[in-house]
């Protein structure tokens, strides 16, 4: 007996697992394109995480924990207490048969294709989307030993060990079959908030702070958000971060710049969808935005180059490009806002 739930193995957002897992499922929803229009527009930068390897740049929007309207959530935490030993396998099989995806934490020591496999105990989250009782494997998706978001298999035997030694949360997710209608006023409003760098959490239908969520593995960590920048202000925050890295000679985190890049990918996709659905002629802005996306990719490669060579001239180049993108983005998005006024 086997069952594999459909999954997008290359979601448009995949920098952080709590977004990637959610988008891997949500992108199968028939209204995912419409959903893109008025969601995941705002970005935040948390200064408090600079010195503690936490999440610096993130989208304001739904995750695996809650708030993504294309998904339905169920707290599986109560179940994990009696789902130990082999019982967890029948539990997983039942949930997959009910078309529910399972997000949980595993001990990577027992997870093949992970850098800690048979090396050391290390907690990391994965999502389960299928099983095969003949081959005795569970289908999971997550970040492999190269840091790539890929699907893989884990044997029943290793899964039980990986789960038993490290199950910090259990979340069940399924596709919400309700239709999603986008709101073009909300789209415009969020763009205004982005350009102004406004905290717009209160405008989201629901917002769950991943660092404070009850089910979160972040519980008790990174909960102090005393200084946060939003939207266009994150460019200055990123420059501050680059200066921090060079003056303190700390390791450069690639992820904030990857999220910045993903934000541009998503914005370009959003503009293309709006162009078609709203029949406004924004081709010129779309062209301009393609250039912004290209620059954000160059920045990523310069960050990698800095990681290898540690030469400050690359930081100067990156700061210059961040400033250019900021200016271009203000112009492009202001034009879009004007079109939709």
């Amino acid at each position, binding site marked *: 007996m086997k069952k594999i739930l459909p999954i997008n193995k290359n979601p448009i957002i995949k920098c952080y697992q709590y977004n990637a897992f959610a988008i891997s499922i949500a992108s199968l929803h028939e209204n995912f394109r419409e959903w893109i229009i008025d969601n995941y527009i705002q970005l935040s930068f948390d200064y408090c995480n600079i010195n503690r390897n936490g999440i610096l740049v993130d989208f304001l929007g739904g995750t695996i924990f809650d708030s993504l309207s294309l998904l339905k959530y169920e707290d599986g935490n109560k179940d994990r207490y009696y789902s130990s030993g082999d019982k967890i396998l029948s539990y997983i099989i039942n949930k997959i048969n009910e078309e529910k995806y399972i997000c949980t934490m595993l001990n990577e020591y027992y997870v093949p294709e992970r850098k800690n496999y048979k090396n050391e105990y290390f907690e990391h989250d994965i999502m389960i989307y299928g099983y095969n009782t003949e081959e005795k494997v569970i289908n999971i998706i997550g970040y492999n030993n190269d840091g790539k978001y890929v699907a893989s298999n884990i044997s029943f035997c290793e899964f039980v060990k990986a789960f038993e030694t490290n199950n910090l949360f259990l979340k069940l997710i399924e596709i919400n079959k309700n239709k999603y209608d986008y709101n073009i006023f909300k789209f415009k409003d969020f763009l205004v908030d982005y350009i102004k760098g406004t905290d717009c959490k209160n405008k989201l239908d629901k917002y769950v702070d991943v660092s404070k969520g009850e089910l979160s593995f972040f519980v008790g960590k990174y909960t102090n958000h005393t200084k946060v920048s939003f939207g266009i202000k994150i460019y200055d925050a990123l420059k501050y971060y680059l200066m921090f890295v060079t003056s303190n000679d700390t390791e450069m985190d690639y992820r904030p710049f990857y999220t910045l890049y993903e934000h541009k990918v998503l914005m370009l996709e959003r503009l293309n969808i709006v162009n078609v659905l709203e029949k406004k002629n924004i081709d010129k802005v779309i062209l301009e935005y393609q250039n912004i996306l*290209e620059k954000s*990719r*160059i920045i990523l*490669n*310069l960050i*990698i*180059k800095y990681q*290898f060579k540690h030469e400050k001239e690359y930081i100067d*180049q990156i700061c210059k*490009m961040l400033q250019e993108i900021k200016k271009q983005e203000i112009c492009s998005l202001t034009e879009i806002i004007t079109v939709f006024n």
Partner: protein
Amino acid sequence: MVLLKIKKIVNEILSTNISIKDDSDLQEFGMDSIKFVQIIIALEDEFKCEIPEEFFLMEKMNSVDKIERVISKLLEEK
């Protein structure tokens, strides 16, 4: 000579002994962002030049052919 040096760098970084055709897409031979940047760094060291940031996009240097064009132009301008 330039072409031979480029091929040697590419083969070393992609850890392959296969003869890669000049117009083959290097991503098919395992070039990802990290290896792409490693190739750029090795090329800059070998040819004592600085590759402008506009070429820091994989699609602009994802074959031996394309790399040779960029490097040859930079060497001409030296």
